[in-house]
Structure formats: C-alpha cells, structure tokens
C-alpha cells in the first residue's frame, strides 16, 4: 500500500553534470571577495554611465559554504577602516555594523596572578580611534551591499575543486548534496555543478581548499617563505555594565603560555555590556602540543580577565586559524584564470593583529584587474598578472613590508626582552623563521620531549561551567551543525589511521588532535578497542587540524554546503 501511494521519486536519469556560465566567480564570501565583488560592480556601473554605447554586463557570482553570509567569519576584531572608506566612503550612513571605537589601548604582561602594563604602547599596536567590529556581522552587511549592487550570492554552497583545463582555471566545482556516509547518493541527492567563469577569484580565508590545490598545481609559493599559522579562539560575553569602559582594547602576553610558546590574549569592550575575549596560540606540526581552547579558558581565569567577566554569560564561541607568515610568505597571487585574495593570499598583518583591511584592499585590487580584463576582453594570465603589480604598488604592500622590517627594529630595540617572552606573537615577521628552525631542531629530540610531557602532565584542568567551559559546552554556543549522514569531511586514510594515529602518533605525541582541535572533533576511545573517534559534526571549520597535524595525515575537505558554525558575533 505504502509503495503504491507514495509518489515515486522523479526519474533518476543520469545526466551530464550541470554547468552554469558566469563571467566572474568568487569562491568564498568573506571581506576580501565581497569587497572585490562590490568594487567590480562599482567600476562597471561607472563605466556604463560614461559609455552608454559600450556597456559591460558581466554575470558575477559569489559562493560561500556558510548557511548565511558571515556565518563562518570570525575575528577579534579591531577594524582599520582604511579600505572600507575607499570602497564605500559613506559606510557609516549605510549602517555598517560597527561597535565602540577603541578609546584606550593596553598591553599587559601576565603572570599567573598578576599583570603588568607596558608603559608606552608602541605605535603599531595603537588602535585608538578604530572601531571594534564583529567580522561575521560586517560580512553579513557587506553581503547585503553586494546583493543590492546586483551580485548573485549563493550561500550553502561549497567550492570543492577548481576546474582546470589546458593549464588554466576556468571555474569551480560545487559540492554534491545528499550523499550518505558511505558516499552513496541519498534520495535527495543533488550533484554539484560546474560554475564556469573567465576569472575565478579565490578568497576562502585561511588554508582554503581551492587555494591549497592551486598553490600545488601552479607552484605559487615556490619563491616565498613557508607560511605560519596560529589558532585564535574567541568568546563573546555579555557582562554587567560598569566592569569596563566601552572601547578598551587589551592585548596580553605571558600567562598561561610558557615562554617558549607564542601566543597572547585579547579583550575588547565592544560596548559597555559586551566584550570579545580571545586567545591566539601558535600551532605548527613541529610543536603540536597546543590546546588553544584550554589556553583561552586559562586566560579567562586570570584575575584581571575574570574580574571583567564575573557574573556575565557567554554568548558565542568560535575558533579560526590565522595565517601569520606576513609578506615573506605571500607567494604569487595570480595565475592563469584565477586571482587569490585576502587571507588565502596571506594578507594579514600579525604585527597589528589585523587583516580585514588588507583582505578588502586585495579584493579591490583584484576587482580593478578584472575590470581591465573585462574592458579589453582579455583574460590571459598576462593581464591577470597586473594584480601582482597593483598589489606591490598599494599601501597594503607598504604596510606588510613595514611590518616585516619592524622585526629588525625590535630585535635590537627596547622590547627585545618582552618579545622573547612571548610578544613575538604580535610580530611574527620578527622571529618566527628563527623559531621555526629552533623548533625543527627540537623535533629531532622529540621522543625524549614526548616522554617528558607524558610523565609530568599537569593536573587535569577542570571547567566550572560559569567562567570556563568544556569544548562541548562551548560548541553549543557556536551554532555549529552539519548533516549527520554524509561522508566524513575530515579524511584520514585507514592505513594511516592504524599506523600513525593509533601507533606512532599515539606514542610520540599522545594524539595531539584531541587537544589542538578547539571543537572536540577528535577523541581517543580506549574501549572496547582503541579508536580515534572523529565527530565531524562538531567541526568549526577553523582548519587547525590540517595545519597542526604532526604527520600531515588529516585532510580537511568541505562538508555539505550549509554545514559549519553559525557565527553572529564572530
């Protein structure tokens, strides 16, 4: 009866993969690509007004894997509005969602119980006058601006692969929907589509899937220094008014990190009753011991932070890796058929702890390049290469360059001591390279180190559910959600799972993924059989695992579109 009644599924005729033609396709809907799309549309509109007989009307699409615009964006953040003022000079009138302006900067060195303020805040760390902002809200607002300008924005859509034909990128492939955990089509299966484009703009943020593939295929980073990463973990709290003045921006170093580990905390008073509190921890395969989530919890226990949060409640939790290699690690940012923008290109100034403005600027420069290409109807690699030139001639390059040189000044300067105890975080241009080498040497002596760590592991950190929270409790405030029955998007091949995860890694590092993942995706289960349990549904898309995995066995692939966190204050 049931079968005769149920209307049978529409005929499942296997057809050729759907292909949609656009002129320009943007992979990723963050500040870089949204600024780029808006800029491009502005240039076209102006051109069309001035040349009514020779108008351009390219189709422009932006795809983003979040379930709404801004859902996957996370930052501190102090926002340098330089690029936005160039893009949309009337951004304030357009209700750009800005929080309090920074009224006072503080740099604090923390010991377990005390804090010492750095008497004079050096220029690059001064934030006074810049607005505090939630990047996810900013992204949501920019997406609205882009859509109003006529950009086709597709949320819930993953870009899983560049389409490369004849040595040139000619679009991207979107992810399949409706596969079960074994990779078989479910009744609601919808095959991903080809989005073909004359120019594909890659702005996926940190450690992007397409960016990584293009870097390999086109050797984009052959000439550049190795990239470096940190993981930022952030919470937004509602607090009792009066605990801190709106606009205070604190940066800390020291506690809870040991001197040899890079990292530091921040506390921004977004309003009299809302603060952004976060912690940045260096992550790298050579030193995978970090636990960024725990560092933030310990940081919040510091008396000077706990006093502010007392009696408050956590509204949102999130995590994101940060690209921190600076100018030296920026490789080529263009290639045949594509441009790379924002953090995917490494546009982040760790000295100033800022990247949004650089991301936006790089996007705008990409837009100008694309506009020229549209005018000339010439999308050759040669034309797109102008982007590199535009970047080198921009203030964005100058700023990144200055940040690099800053390192030498500091090496000899007043703050050398501070830097050695942890401030390097803020100056990655500074000594990461030398540190990297040092860590590499450490790596050779790893077994000894690992044993030591196992034996005198610190007493277990207990969360209290008021000030500090377990990863599970935190996740509840991240809005993260995935279709449960889909292929695991964190791929470890079975042979490596057996040999590395349950063998070598367990012995040498005690499965650091169970600690460095701020989303509790990885857990080691002892019984009935030792297993590394992967809970992909917890994933915050922060990419820490691919960047910190000591053996490089974890591959992060985009899960079904719409999965992932749901940041509103990120």
């Amino acid at each position: 009866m049931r079968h005769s009644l149920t209307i049978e599924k529409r005929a499942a005729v296997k057809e050729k993969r759907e292909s949609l033609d656009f002129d320009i396709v943007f992979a990723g809907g963050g500040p870089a690509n949204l600024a780029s799309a808006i800029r491009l549309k502005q240039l076209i509109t102006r051109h069309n007004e001035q040349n009514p007989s020779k108008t351009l009307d390219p189709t422009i699409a932006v795809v983003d894997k979040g379930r709404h615009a801004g859902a996957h964006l996370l930052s501190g953040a102090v926002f340098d509005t330089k690029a936005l003022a160039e893009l949309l000079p009337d951004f304030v009138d357009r209700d750009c969602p800005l929080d309090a302006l920074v009224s006072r900067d503080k740099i604090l060195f923390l010991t377990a119980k005390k804090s010492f303020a750095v008497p004079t805040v050096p220029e690059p760390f001064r934030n006074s006058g810049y607005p505090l902002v939630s990047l996810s809200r900013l992204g949501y607002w920019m997406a609205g601006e882009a859509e109003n300008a006529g950009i086709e924005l597709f949320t819930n859509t993953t870009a899983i692969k560049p389409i490369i034909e004849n040595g040139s990128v000619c679009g991207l492939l979107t992810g399949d929907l409706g596969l079960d955990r074994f990779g078989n089509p479910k009744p609601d299966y919808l095959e991903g589509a080809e989005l073909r484009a004359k120019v594909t703009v890659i702005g996926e943020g940190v450690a992007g899937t397409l960016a990584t593939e293009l870097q390999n295929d086109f050797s984009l980073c052959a000439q550049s220094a190795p990239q470096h990463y940190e993981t930022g973990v952030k919470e937004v709290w509602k607090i009792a008014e009066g605990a801190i003045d709106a606009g205070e921006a604190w940066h800390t170093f020291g506690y809870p990190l040991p001197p040899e580990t890079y990292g530091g905390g921040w506390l921004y008073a977004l309003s009299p009753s809302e603060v952004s509190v976060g912690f940045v921890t260096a992550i790298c395969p050579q030193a995978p011991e970090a636990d960024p989530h725990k560092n933030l919890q310990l940081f919040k226990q510091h008396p000077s932070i706990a006093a502010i949060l007392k009696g408050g409640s956590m509204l949102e939790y999130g995590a994101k890796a940060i690209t921190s290699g600076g100018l030296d690690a920026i490789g080529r940012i263009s290639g045949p058929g594509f441009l790379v923008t924002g953090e995917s290109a490494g546009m982040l100034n760790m000295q100033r702890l800022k990247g949004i403005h650089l991301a936006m600027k790089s996007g705008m420069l990409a837009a100008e390049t694309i506009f020229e290409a549209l005018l000339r109807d010439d999308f050759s690699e040669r034309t797109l290469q102008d982007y590199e030139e535009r970047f080198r001639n921009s203030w964005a390059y100058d700023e990144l360059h200055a940040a690099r040189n800053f390192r030498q000044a500091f090496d000899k300067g007043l703050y050398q001591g501070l830097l050695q105890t942890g401030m390097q975080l803020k100056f990655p241009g500074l000594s990461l390279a030398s540190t990297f080498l040092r860590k590499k040497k450490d790596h050779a002596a790893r077994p000894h180190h690992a044993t030591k760590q196992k034996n005198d592991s610190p007493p277990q950190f207990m969360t209290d559910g008021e000030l500090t929270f377990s990863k599970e409790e935190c996740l509840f405030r991240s809005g993260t959600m995935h279709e449960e029955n889909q292929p695991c998007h964190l791929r470890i091949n079975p042979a490596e799972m057996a040999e590395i995860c349950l063998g070598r890694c367990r012995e040498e590092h005690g499965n650091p993924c169970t600690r460095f993942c701020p989303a509790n995706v990885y857990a080691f289960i002892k019984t009935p059989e030792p297993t590394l349990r992967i809970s992909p549904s917890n994933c915050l898309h922060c990419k820490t695992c691919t960047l910190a995995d000591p053996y490089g066995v974890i591959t992060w692939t985009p899960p079904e579109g719409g999965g992932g966190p749901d940041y509103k204050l990120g």
Partner: protein
Amino acid sequence: MGQYYLVYLELRNGAIAKSSIDVWNRFQELAACIDDRMYGFAAGPAAEGAFDVLQGNGTIYHAAGSRSGSASDVAVCAMLEELACRHGVTGIALASTAMGRRLAPLLSGRLRAALLSGCREFGGPDEACSRFIHSGSVIASYMPASAITVFLQGRELVSPDFCAAERPQIEVFDAAPYLDAGIDVLFRPVMHSSQGRDIAEASVIVAGGRGMGSPEAFGLLEELAALFGGSVGASRSAVDEGWRPHGEQIGQTGKRVAPDLYIACGISGALQHLAGIAAARIVVAVNSDPDAPIFGAADYGIVGDVRIVLPELIAAVRDLLTKK
C-alpha cells in the same frame, strides 16, 4: 457561577480510551465546587458497560448512532459545539490522541475559543497554562482570553487518582442531524496496523539509537519494554538507518513523549532527541561513551555496551518482578 466542563470521551473498539478517562478524572477533580458541572460526550458504538469506568457526577451524552469509528471530525465537532452551547460550557477538554489533536484546534477556530494544549500545570479556564515551547528549552505561560477554553491534554501530567462513589448519568444523543455535514472525508477501513501501543501514550518507553548497531538488537529493547508493559521507540538515526518505522521516532522531528520511565539505549542524546523527551519523568541512559550528552539529561546511567548491559538489565528486572 461555576465552571461547566465538557469532556470528549473517545471510544475505541467500544471502550473509552484510557487517555480520555484520565482527562475526565482530571476535570472531575477540578470541578470540585458545588456550582461546577461536568458533561461528557462520546460518539460511536459502546460496549455494554463501557461507561462504568467513569466516576463522579455529571451527564454523559452518547451518540451511538454513528457508524463505528466513523463519526467524522466535522460531525463530532458540530455535536460538541451543540452541547457546549446548550449548557453554556466554559471549558471543553480532549485527550491528546490523533483524533483529539485534529478536533481541538478545529473547535478552537470555530468557537473562537482559546486552545491550551500540553499544559504542565493545571488550573482551569481562568488560570494561566504553562507549556514547553522551543523544543523543551523554554516554558511559556498563556492566559486564555475567550469565553470558552479548549484543553488538549496528553501525558504531561501524572494520571489523577480520582475516586468517587457517584456515577454519571448516561443520555442518548441523536447524531442523525449532524452526520451529513457535507464536507466530509470518506473513510475506508484501516489497512494495516502497527504493533503495540502508540509511544505517545506509553508510560514506559525503551528507545534505541544508532549505538544499537543493528535492527536485530532492538529485540533486546522489545524484551525489556515487555517487562515494563511499555513500548519501543527509536532515535532519528535508527529510523534513518531503516531499523525502525517513522511512527516510533522520538525527538523534534518525531513524537514528543512523556513517559514515567524512559530508557535510552545507544542514543547519544542530540539536542533534537532531548527535545522529544523533555517531559519524561525518569530518564535512564545506557551508552558506551561516558561523554555522550544523553547522560547530561539522564537521572540514571550505565556506561557500557548495550549488547552486554541490556541482557543483564533484563535479567535483573525479571528477578525483581518474580520476587514480588
């Protein structure tokens, strides 16, 4: 003036449904004032002595004339409306059965009567009613703002222990004028029947999730449920796997249940699942993962493999049952 209550008494195979008796008893308790009055209404054929289970004062109208189980919603609704008007009823109460859930909003819309469903505290038409909303994460209280209030009651409250020497009076109600309402659904007989009781009415539910590992393992749950006289339920994962039918699914996309005892086996306890058991009184969790969120919502827990723990539990419960 007192409250006049009209209770819809659902007849199933000639007998009054247990859930309707609960509602009758609850309103009998409520109608304690001298001015309060109780009315009942039942449609369809009743077995000899079917109404003997009802205690307390009042008048029960029985529309026996309608065919078995076939008095359409619209006809029953029209008859209830007639009785409500005839007696100046202030509250109409229905049990939350499949039919009750169709009738109550229909009555509410036609009589412009406030609908209070799933109340967790109970005061009558003049008092606010509180119920779960947003998957059990919030309790909202509502005040009816209409002359008549329609109550739809499920297992949110413990069965009342109402006892009285009096028996209601039974009167025949002529259904004929109402049976041709014109806009009715035609009925065909029930085609097939699922086994056991509806889980929404069960006082004990033993439910399994993906951790059961196979559809066969649900046999253990059936065995355990049988000892308690309860029903078997399933999590979304188990239903998605095709191990159990949709009708057994508990959670946000399935049924919300309110048993006295809920035993969750191999269920991790996703929020959507917990949403379905917010009103359960005692929750027991059996899971091999000590970090499973289900333990956070459980009164009692055992960490262990369901295939090992369940046979032991079945044996232990059976021992206690035979000792008694």
